């Protein structure tokens, strides 16, 4: 039972927490130097380059795949552009065996974990090598070996799932935690409230990482909530919170490392709000000129997180113009070649229509499948993707 130990007042005082601002943690200036007072980050060259390369790979992939979408090679695409530091800086602060449950704009985390361009392409083109068997739209990646939960489009559903997943990790006692990513828009869903409250009550090792990128499609954050960002909500759950410059790779990394420590060592869930900006359109279907100004975008383009890290690396002499050029070129080449290869691969087998609904195909569904195969056999021209699979020699159930 709540026994409020709070002080007593004898006249009605209303407060709205406005005086109570959560500060923003920053380390790295846009010119690549540290802020005065900023502690030198605990990041060695190897790790720094792993992070940086993942950022560049993400950027290159995004640029090329958006272009491919524009050329009609791909049905849909979503970019991480502008948010690479928020996503990769946080993922890099974890153990690779920690679970990642993302929203959809976190391909950077997957790149950091080692998802190959081949693997990205197979999903984007939904070919026979796509782990998701061509069932989901582009960018709905997943990898069990890299502990990256397959993306699902309904927003915020992964947030309470992350609480549950982390609770399972806690009971298993293997010292791992879960991070879940979501936008400031998705944080309005009821599932967000459920997830944070349950995590606080049950002391679950989970990191809630909000990418506050200013928009949910066309809806600006000012129409999403009246408060100063998402961070103040943590107090409502008595949860540790930190706000961080989301374009500052060092601050994001540092903050998430500290958050992970709280989560794993003390079973204290943490909310991390990264303040950033979605530089690209919401998706390839969107045109932001209908709801925001070029000027606003320009301000944020100046804060490019990749450039910021690059400058820091160069100041350390850990990276050079030459290496940059080489990396960019080789990535572009690899992306293009891989894309061509992936696009040519056949689609997943017809059986993939009915498998994985259950652990086994139930009889009624198998009947539907047999009927479908007979139908395709009758009208092979109408089903170019699968006609080959049902030709007379290939009969048989799923």
């Amino acid at each position, binding site marked *: 039972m709540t026994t409020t130990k709070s002080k007593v007042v004898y006249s009605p005082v209303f407060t709205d927490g406005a005086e109570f601002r959560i500060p923003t943690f920053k380390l790295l200036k846009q010119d690549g130097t540290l802020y005065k007072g900023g502690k030198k980050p605990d990041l060695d060259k190897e790790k720094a380059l792993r992070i940086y390369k993942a950022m560049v790979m993400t950027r290159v992939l995004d640029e090329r795949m958006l272009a491919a979408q524009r050329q009609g090679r791909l049905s849909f695409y979503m970019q991480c552009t502008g948010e690479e530091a928020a996503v990769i800086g946080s993922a890099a602060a974890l153990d690779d065996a920690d679970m990642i449950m993302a929203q959809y704009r976190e391909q950077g985390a997957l790149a950091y974990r080692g998802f190959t361009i081949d693997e990205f392409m197979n999903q984007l083109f939904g070919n026979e090598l796509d782990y998701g068997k061509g069932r*989901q739209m582009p960018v709905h990646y997943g990898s069990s070996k890299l502990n990256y939960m397959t993306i699902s489009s309904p927003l915020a559903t992964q947030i309470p799932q992350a609480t549950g997943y982390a609770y399972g990790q806690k009971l298993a006692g293997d010292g791992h935690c879960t991070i879940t990513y979501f936008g400031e828009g998705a944080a309005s869903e009821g599932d967000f409230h459920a997830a944070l409250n349950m995590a606080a009550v049950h002391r679950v090792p989970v990191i809630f990482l909000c990418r506050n990128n200013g928009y949910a499609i066309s809806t600006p954050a000012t129409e999403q909530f009246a408060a100063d960002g998402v961070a103040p909500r943590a107090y409502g759950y008595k949860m540790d919170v930190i706000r961080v410059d989301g374009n500052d790779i060092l601050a994001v990394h540092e903050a998430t490392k500290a958050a992970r420590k709280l989560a794993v060592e003390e079973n204290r869930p943490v909310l991390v709000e990264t303040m950033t900006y979605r530089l690209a359109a919401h998706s390839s279907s969107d045109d932001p000129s209908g709801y925001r100004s070029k000027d606003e975008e320009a301000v944020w383009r100046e804060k490019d997180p990749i450039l910021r890290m690059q400058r820091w690396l160069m100041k350390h002499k850990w990276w050079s113009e030459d290496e940059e050029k080489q990396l960019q070129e080789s990535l572009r080449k690899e992306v293009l070649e891989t894309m061509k290869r992936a696009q040519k691969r056949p689609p997943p087998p017809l059986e993939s229509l009915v498998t994985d609904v259950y652990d086994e195909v139930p009889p009624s569904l198998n009947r539907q499948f047999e009927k479908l195969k007979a139908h395709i056999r009758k009208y092979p021209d109408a089903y170019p993707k699968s006609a080959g699979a049902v030709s007379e020699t290939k009969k048989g159930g799923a």
Partner: protein
Amino acid sequence: MAKMNMLQAINDALDIAMAANDRVLCFGEDVGVFGGVFRATSHLQQKYGKDRCFNTPLVEQGIIGFANGLAAQGATPVAEIQFADYIFPAFDQIVNESAKYRYRSGNLFNVGGLTIRAPYGGGIAGGLYHSQSPEAYFAHTPGLKIVVPRNPHQAKGLLLASIHDPNPTLFFEPKRLYRASVGEVPEGEYELPLSEAEIVKEGTDITVLGWGAQMEVIEQAVEQAEKEGISCEVIDLRTILPWDVETVAQSVLKTGRLVVTHEAPLTGGFAGEIAATIQERCFLYLESPIARVTGMDTPFPLVLEKEHLPNHLKVYEAIRESVEF
């Protein structure tokens, strides 16, 4: 009359409803200045102000909870759910609240002013979560009306009727036809009746029934069947709940055969309800089993969407099988 696509017809209906009654409000995710991700609410905020057409926070259960309250207060909310696939977080507010408001209060209160619009259906490479046809999930809920238009003319007249109807109404829009379906639409205010199916084409050998985007599929299938001398009666159900049993039963009493088709999976789909009702009503007149041509009992796939969907060839085959039974 003006030539319009379905989005324009819907936008026109909303415009007319808002102009006629300042208690009509349109809101939902991205509905405000942007006019919705499909642009169905374009220009409404500019015309009627931010108080009457606005973005909501991203929370479907809140959108419908808010809309229920507004309707109870006497307003006429038209809430948009961005995709029908995302209506499920609001399921409780719709099924336990909207549908039961009048009954549980003994008619002291009601949310009859409520209309919920949501784009539904496949055929746009949307995969699991931009393709669903959830009408049957709601059709088990007395108190709701469920309406699905097949073309721009129907969309405008049925949407205006839904907005004006004194019961909470779900209006599912076949998004595949948003821009693809173009046709003549009368200017100004008009309504088409709810809970009345429409005989789109008369025929004598078999009745073929559907709604929404599936009507186009039926048209193609029937064209092929008629070439072979099978005379088809085509019915657009238009309102799923409460549905027009009489029109369908009368037709089947005449033709003796029925094919029902929808995109949603077979099991638990609304074709089952129709088949169950009609086999009872027309038992002695049925010359072949009632056939259902539907999506498969799986989540909605992406790459093999074509194989999954009940296209005109599958409907045509069902017509033939029924006639040859």
